């Protein structure tokens, strides 16, 4: 499993590059080459690195390590068929690392990014709806059980489509340049990552690449089922391109609109899950 981490990081970074390229082409720009994010990460790895005088040490550094650690753990959970509840926990803990990144630097821009990060905790609610819905349908929260269920009953994407939409929105809320990416809005510079540069930024790029890889893989496993690795990558790529289309066509929402929209989506899903539970 450890040996798969490096390829996953590489593919995650490549996905980020493809994401930027697709958005650029839709918007009529040439866009960066698709390997740009890999080059970025390498560049940041060798740039001069220092720590702001205002930072809370060692938390400023520790939070980067935590970010990498939790997504490495999430990678293990998804590919070992572990508990979906644990994946949910990782997703929530990621919120703490986002928040910690912004708080630890002492920068007002970082702090505003951190505040927006907690406000956008509403993006976790559709994930909870996903988990509840999957539990109602399959009777299990173990990813291995859910893939087995799909081998017998067919993909959940077809007979639990609204739940798939919920997870799709969760992944969309974590994509760069998306309608819900309020923590990285340009009016607050780079948001919670403003003061993390050099090797710290490279570490964050690695963590976020793993995050993208894990979330896309989780979607494919949960709603399409277990596939050979090349089909899995293809399905993840198609999913990513569809997300890029949404990001390219949708303006960034204001923080309150982002929260309101995610809450409404969750409400609709809650009604669907209740109906699903009552109908048996």
């Amino acid at each position: 499993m450890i040996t798969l981490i490096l390829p996953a990081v590489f593919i995650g970074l490549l996905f980020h590059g493809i994401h930027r390229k697709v958005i650029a082409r839709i918007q009529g720009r040439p866009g960066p080459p698709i390997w740009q994010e890999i080059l970025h990460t390498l560049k940041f790895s060798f740039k001069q690195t220092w720590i702001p005088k205002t930072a809370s040490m060692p938390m400023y550094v520790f939070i980067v390590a935590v970010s990498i650690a939790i997504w490495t753990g999430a990678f293990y959970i998804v590919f070992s068929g572990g508990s979906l509840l644990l994946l949910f926990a990782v997703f929530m803990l990621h919120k703490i690392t986002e928040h910690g990144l912004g708080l630890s630097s002492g920068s007002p821009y970082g702090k505003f990014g951190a505040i927006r990060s907690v406000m956008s905790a509403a993006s976790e609610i559709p994930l909870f709806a996903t988990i509840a819905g999957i539990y109602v349908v399959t009777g299990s929260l173990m990813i291995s059980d859910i893939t087995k269920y799909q081998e017998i009953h067919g993909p959940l994407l077809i007979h639990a489509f609204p739940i798939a939409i919920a997870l799709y929105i969760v992944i969309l809320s974590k994509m760069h340049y998306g309608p819900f990416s309020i923590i990285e809005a340009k009016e607050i510079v780079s948001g919670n990552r403003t003061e993390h540069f050099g090797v710290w930024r490279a570490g964050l790029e690695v963590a976020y690449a793993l995050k993208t890889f894990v979330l896309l893989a989780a979607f494919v496993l949960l709603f399409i089922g277990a596939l050979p690795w090349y089909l899995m990558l293809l399905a993840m790529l198609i999913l990513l391109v569809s997300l890029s289309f949404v990001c390219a066509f949708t303006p960034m929402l204001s923080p309150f609109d982002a929260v309101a929209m995610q809450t409404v989506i969750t409400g609709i899903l809650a009604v669907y899950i209740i109906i699903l539970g009552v109908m048996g």
Partner: protein
Amino acid sequence: MFNLPIEGEELFVLEFGDIVNYFSLYTTTLFLFATAFIIIAIIARPERQTDIIFGTDAVYTKEVSPDNLRFQRFMAIACGLATLGAVCSGDLFNFCLFTALIGITNIGIVAGVNNRYVLNAAYNYGIVAMVATTFLFGGAATALGSCGTLSIWELAGLGMVPLAAKMFLVLGVMGEGMAPFYIAKAEITRAPGAPYVLMIHVSSLLIFLRVIEIILTV
């Protein structure tokens, strides 16, 4: 754990007489995360928050006085320890007790900032936390009244705990873990945050994650 396909396998059981705490893969992850942040609260120095002097181009950094630092650090560590108790507790009463303690220490962390707006916010949070305590222990009492026990070991997989009790527990946790309230108000921009304020969010999220596991299990 409990032969339920919810939270992964059982790793360790810690008995204190009839109080039996448990560590599944899920709760151990939460426990380790809380432990890491307690260590950080002990060893980290606070951020020196940069702020802009209103109406000018000037910026200044806020310093945390040694007295405030000691108090906030103590409260953050206490909050972390209460979180450890809440995430590994094997019965609903202890879970509620530790969650209430998290609410109290969270108020302490906020109240440790010498600023009248922040203190006012701490007072408001105190009211929210007190109201939430009613729901929290009301949920536990309802579960006890209908099932005759509060042990998660006994209740796991039976589905005997009424939906109302589960809803009360969730409402109680939402009130005690008051991160959303703290963020919804502007005081966080006035109070230097890391690492002590972050402990509020760590504890809030961890007890929220724990209560989800509990309501799915019982």
